[in-house]
């Protein structure tokens, strides 16, 4: 079978990381990987090259404005946007994991290979409306993540978090599959866009089986974005996972699931008007529950990673509010918010690595006074936390603002007020981290332990954190350029949602 250049163009962004991952697997067969530095360097270099290659190819496609397709894989603007998003997240993760795994003393090549496979699955998941491809993408990015959460086998918490994530994730995937099969059964096609029009023509849009099928599919998406009540795995999985992997999961999984949700629910299922209304009502209720529960539980956490996990749950709530508003401008806001969220959350998890916190030592106590010792990291921490809380000149504020403005515009004033109140509550736990960093002196015992250990040396993680801080700051000042240049074009030309 020979492929046309256009088909190659659609496939290459996925093939490059897959090839890199296969090379890394071969490299990591070397039993000396824990001892020989150049093998480790080569593995990380290969991973970065693979990510950069795919990133470069995607930006090239974006600049050329072409939207190639390989059968059901549509590399349209939205898919290219997702690909660039995932590749940036993967690159930041690779940089941070070099330092983190050296601190943990657990440098393994398979981690990188799994990360790359997962990134490929994410691109696949967000670039199709065909259910078979959608399901394969979902599993291709989920299965490596189950393994990544439990990757540091020496720690028993690691296997436990991985197991919890695996069991809940596998149930959610099965539900997603069952939902898709039911919709296929009644429509006779796997392409969700075609299925929606067939169901409308047949008058089956509100058939109970279609409703169950759509609800089960929605469950699969909501699980991946960790919306209440499918959020229980989040804090356990993030706490057990290595810091960079937790950051990657919080950012890339959530972002990709939101983009795929956007493609399927408002995109493909648009002809099923009545079903869309029902789904929107469900999403509104779950968004409120997610906001309230995520924010209130985050208040009482003593572990920074668990706090960040609940914070990521509450951010799923804000993003879901964008779906409740359901206007093109709101979806643009969601995409913009995802980009800023990528920078601030990757940065926040990167801080833990940059400060050299390993294993279980990720409580607020362990952070005390560190802001003064590493002023650049302290400044970056202030940027991330203020942006996560939605303080005006920073990027996080504009993302929330775009979503809330559309909520008010569509008459959901109550939800907008709830969102603003939730942001106010969230300021408490974000500022608590800054208070620990700057205003509390470290305990005498911590000082003694720190003087015994060698000084923390995490140049790559530090650089990644600073890059994130710059993106967050730039997002605050260039928000309209970013929105018009990227988010809106991805929606207009990729999804055809705005006309």
């Amino acid at each position, binding site marked *: 079978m020979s492929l046309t250049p256009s088909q190659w163009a659609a496939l290459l962004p996925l093939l490059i990381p897959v090839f890199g991952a296969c090379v890394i697997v071969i490299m990591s067969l070397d039993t000396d990987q824990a001892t020989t530095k150049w093998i480790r360097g080569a593995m990380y270099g290969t991973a970065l090259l693979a990510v950069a290659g795919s990133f470069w190819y995607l930006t090239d496609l974006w600049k050329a404005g072409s939207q190639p397709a390989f059968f059901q894989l549509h590399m349209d603007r939205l898919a290219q946007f997702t690909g660039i998003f995932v590749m940036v997240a993967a690159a930041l993760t690779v940089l941070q994991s070099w330092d983190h795994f050296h601190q943990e003393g657990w440098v393994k090549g398979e981690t990188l290979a799994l990360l790359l496979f997962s990134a490929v699955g994410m691109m696949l998941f967000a670039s199709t409306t065909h259910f078979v491809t959608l399901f394969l993408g979902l*599993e291709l990015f989920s299965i490596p993540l189950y393994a990544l959460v439990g990757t540091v086998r020496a720690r028993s918490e690691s296997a436990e978090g991985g197991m919890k994530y695996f*069991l809940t994730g596998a149930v959610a995937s*099965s539900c997603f599959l069952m939902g898709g099969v039911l919709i296929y059964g009644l429509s006779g096609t796997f392409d969700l866009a075609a299925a929606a029009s067939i169901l409308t023509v047949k008058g089956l849009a509100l058939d109970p089986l279609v409703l169950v099928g759509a609800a089960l599919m929605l469950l699969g998406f909501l699980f991946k974005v960790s919306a209440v009540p499918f959020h229980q795995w989040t*804090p356990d999985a993030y706490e057990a996972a290595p810091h960079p992997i937790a950051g990657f999961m919080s950012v890339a999984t959530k972002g990709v699931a939101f983009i795929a949700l956007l493609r399927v629910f408002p995109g493909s299922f648009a002809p099923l008007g009545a079903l869309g209304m029902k789904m929107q009502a469900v999403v509104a209720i779950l968004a409120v529950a997610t906001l309230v529960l995520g924010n209130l539980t985050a208040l009482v956490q003593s572990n920074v990673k668990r706090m960040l996990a609940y914070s990521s749950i509450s951010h799923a709530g804000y993003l879901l509010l964008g779906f409740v508003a359901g206007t093109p401008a709101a979806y643009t806001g969601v995409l913009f918010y995802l980009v800023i969220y990528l920078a601030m959350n990757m940065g926040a998890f990167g801080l833990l690595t940059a400060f050299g916190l390993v294993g279980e030592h990720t409580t607020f106590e362990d952070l005390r006074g560190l802001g003064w010792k590493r002023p650049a990291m302290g400044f970056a921490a202030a940027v991330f936390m203020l942006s996560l809380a939605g303080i005006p000149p920073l990027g996080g504020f504009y993302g929330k603002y775009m979503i809330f403005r559309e909520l008010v515009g569509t008459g959901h004033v109550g939800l907008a007020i709830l969102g603003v109140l939730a942001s106010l509550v969230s300021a408490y736990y974000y500022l608590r981290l800054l208070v620990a960093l700057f205003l509390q002196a470290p305990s005498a015992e911590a000082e003694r332990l720190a003087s015994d250990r060698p000084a923390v040396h995490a140049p790559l993680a530090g650089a990644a954190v600073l890059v994130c801080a710059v993106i967050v700051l730039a997002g605050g000042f260039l928000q309209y350029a970013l929105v018009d240049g990227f988010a809106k074009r991805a929606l207009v030309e990729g999804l055809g949602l705005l006309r």
Partner: protein
Amino acid sequence: MTGMDAILHGGLQGYLVVALLLFGLGLATVLLRRTLLLQFMGVELMLNAANVALLAFARFHGGDAQAMVFYLFIIAVAACEAAIGLALVIGLYRHRDTTDSDRATSLKQ
């Protein structure tokens, strides 16, 4: 035609009832049992319930080849999940000497 005949000789509904029953049983196993291996079997049961429904629908739609191929993909995916899941169970067992999911509580606060 009696109910048993419908299940054996082709009624789509019979297959669907079986599939949804299997799905419910699998979900109940995951939620109620407290042994990781049995919970894991519940997940496999849910995947296979979807397979039964998929094949029944495929026959109903005149032997849709796409669905048959998808069925093979699902089997492959289930095998991958089994590999990861069993590896995690073994990893946990080495640390805790148990596969009881109620005792895997070190991450709670």
